């Protein structure tokens, strides 16, 4: 069977962070971690090509995933392997998006990464196999990945025991008993004391541990962030009104207020009349500046961060949160006021 392997610039030997902007390219045969993969898969299967891309390019350049997918598609693979990406966020997202796009086209694809990689949530219907947390664990990670790939190529399924993580697609099937009979079976099971029987797995709620309280607010830089879709009046960056795929930042460094007419909310989930009459109802810059002058807070972050929280997928919302936290941490903000609508 023909296999194509996707890896990032680092594992392709192009370079580290300095080469993260490298565009996609293809090489004959196996490269880097793909060599061990090829060895483990044996003579029945061949890694015919390796496609690689810089992590920044893959995750932020428009059309990058399409470019990568078309390079892979040209090889007419029977199966595509991406990673392992360990806990590397951008690499994991790239592996996940490439695998998800291929599976949506009907090409089987497997990505490998650590459980906590944000890519796990973005792999669509592709199979995700657990890897270690760091590249030091490449050996056992490739072993597990190769075993899962071998099972899939043999037409077998890959389950939890094989290291499968992430979402498993749910497909419609016809069963013998009508739903009404199954409901009565289930109610009798419940009466019999079975509290776990169900046909729909209970949703996983992510418990969030609150951060520790701020020690001294008068020495802390505070950021204003919102899902209320407040943008400059022309909406220059085309923030969506629903199902956001991105977040934006706007400078407030030189401002004491956000006047009506200059800013407006493009949120599609509520009537924005009152928000647009006074944009501070969404982003309270006026009051925040007063607090700054009074010395109650140590300072106000130069930008406010904004997206729209309306029908946003949980995966996108989680990604925005991760990116916001990293961004604020880098910029020195140590507390944030998130206004929600």
């Amino acid at each position, binding site marked *: 069977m023909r296999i194509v392997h996707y890896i990032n610039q680092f594992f392709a030997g192009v370079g580290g962070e300095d080469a993260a902007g490298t565009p996609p390219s293809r090489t004959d045969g196996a490269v880097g971690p793909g060599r061990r993969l090829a060895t483990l898969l044996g003579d029945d299967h061949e890694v015919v090509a390796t496609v690689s891309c810089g992590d920044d390019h893959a995750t932020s350049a428009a059309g990058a995933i399409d470019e990568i997918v078309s390079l892979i598609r040209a090889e007419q693979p029977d199966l595509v392997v991406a990673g392992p990406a360990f806990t590397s966020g951008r690499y994991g997202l790239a592996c996940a998006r490439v695998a998800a796009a291929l*599976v*949506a086209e009907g090409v089987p694809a497997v990505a490998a990464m650590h459980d906590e990689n944000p890519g796990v949530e973005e792999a*669509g*219907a592709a199979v995700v196999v657990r890897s270690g947390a760091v590249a030091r664990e490449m050996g056992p990670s490739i072993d597990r990945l190769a075993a899962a790939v071998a099972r899939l190529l043999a037409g077998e*399924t*890959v*389950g939890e025991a094989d290291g*499968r993580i992430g*979402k*498993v*697609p*749910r*497909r*419609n*099937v*016809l*069963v*013998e*008993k*009508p*739903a*009404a*009979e*199954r*409901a*009565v079976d*289930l*109610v*009798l*099971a*419940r*009466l019999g004391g079975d*509290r*776990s*029987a*169900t*046909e*729909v*797995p*209970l*949703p996983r709620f992510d418990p969030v541990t609150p951060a520790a309280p701020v020690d001294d607010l008068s020495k802390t830089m505070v950021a204003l962030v919102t899902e209320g879709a407040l943008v400059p009046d022309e909406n220059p960056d085309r923030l969506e009104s629903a199902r956001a795929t991105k977040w934006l930042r706007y400078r407030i460094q030189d401002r004491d207020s956000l006047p009506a007419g200059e800013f407006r909310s493009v949120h599609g989930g509520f009537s924005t009349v009152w928000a647009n009459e006074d944009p501070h109802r969404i982003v309270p810059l006026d009051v925040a500046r007063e607090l700054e002058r009074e010395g109650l807070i140590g300072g106000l972050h130069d930008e406010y961060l904004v997206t729209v929280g309306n029908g946003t*997928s*949980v995966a996108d919302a989680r990604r925005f949160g991760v990116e916001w936290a990293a961004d604020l941490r880098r910029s020195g903000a140590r507390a944030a006021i998130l206004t929600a609508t």
Partner: protein
Amino acid sequence: MRLSENDEVGAGNWGRRGRPLTRLVHEVTALCLGEETAYREGRLTVSAPEAAAIVAAPALAEVRVSCASPGEPVRIVKLLDAVEPRTKGRGGAGIFPGILSPRRPTRGPETHVLRGAAVVAAGFLPRAQEAVVDMSGPAAPLSPLGATHNVVVEFTPAPGADWEDVDTALRQGIIALAARLAEAALEAPADAVETLPGVGEQADDGLPRVGVLTNLQTQGKFKQPFVYGRSFTDSFTTLIDPNDLDDGAVVSGQFGHPGLKNSTLLYQNHPIVEAMRRRHGSELRFAGVVLSPEPVDQAAKEFMSAHAARVCALAGWDAAVVTKEGGGNADADMSLAMDALEEMGVPAVGLFAEMAGRDGTGPSIVVPPMRATAMVSTGNYDERLVLPAVERALGAERIDLVDQAATDEIEIPMAAVYCSLSPLGWGRSTCREAA
């Protein structure tokens, strides 16, 4: 329409029990149009001019009647409602109270049922989402109408007619037609005699008392069922004799969410009620049916769900199955009621359709219960299926959803197949993890 107020037939004294009912079942195995409406040895013949005259109303300029039977290369689109032909005697004799017969609890111990047949209305109405049924191919087993001999009523509204009048005329028309067709079997020997117990009997048999809480969609015009002929919008939770469901006490006027619709035919044959009747006396004691509205705002949802749960508990239920009509909005009413029941120590099971996205990886339930855990899956709303081309289409010439001719090969979501995700539990679809 005739029903004598003095008709005491079957109005026996059943004391504190519910009304017992016997179904005289006539199996329909063939359907055709012919000179005279008749039923003989499984063959139902329909006089198209007579049928059209029964449905005719000032709001309808034209009514057309045709047939669609299982296995035929036929598709019905823009399907609105389906009714099983039933009657209690000439002129209906109490069947469909509040619509065909006077509004009062139905009486008379026997109901004639043309099982395997349906009267179906198809065409455009405002707020109606397009429903599709194929009489053959992969979608046929997904809809109750894929296996019935269907008398299909198409219509042209009268110029300038109010859409509400068109809706009312269709509802009254197909119900009157369904009763008239069943009348053709009044003298025929029954293929099966099914005696339904009355509910409410107290018995010290140690069996758990189990009932079904059925939420009805109540979102106003074109999105509301009728109970004893009256819109259930703005109504309160009520207990109802399940045998009245058999006699057409609940009629659909809800045309949203095709896959998640509860048609009149399914209220007449409420699948959970049927399942509980089958286990009555052996595994459980069937404790009855509670109907409850699905209000549109959160505070009303919370109140009505808690109230419905209390009605079930006050009726002495040990456990409940909870059903809904509609999409994610209706999940909230069901989840709130399930949680309220569990809080009172009444185990609750809900029937949910999953809304897990095309690839089946999204979160399945829009508003899952917080306390209750037992859910039946009637399938993924979003998964797509390809229906092969057919030779003949009824209801409309085009399917707007895909902007194609109604006879074309089409790719549609499960959500568009009529009753395919039946919240009343008719179907055999469910979701499994694709490992």
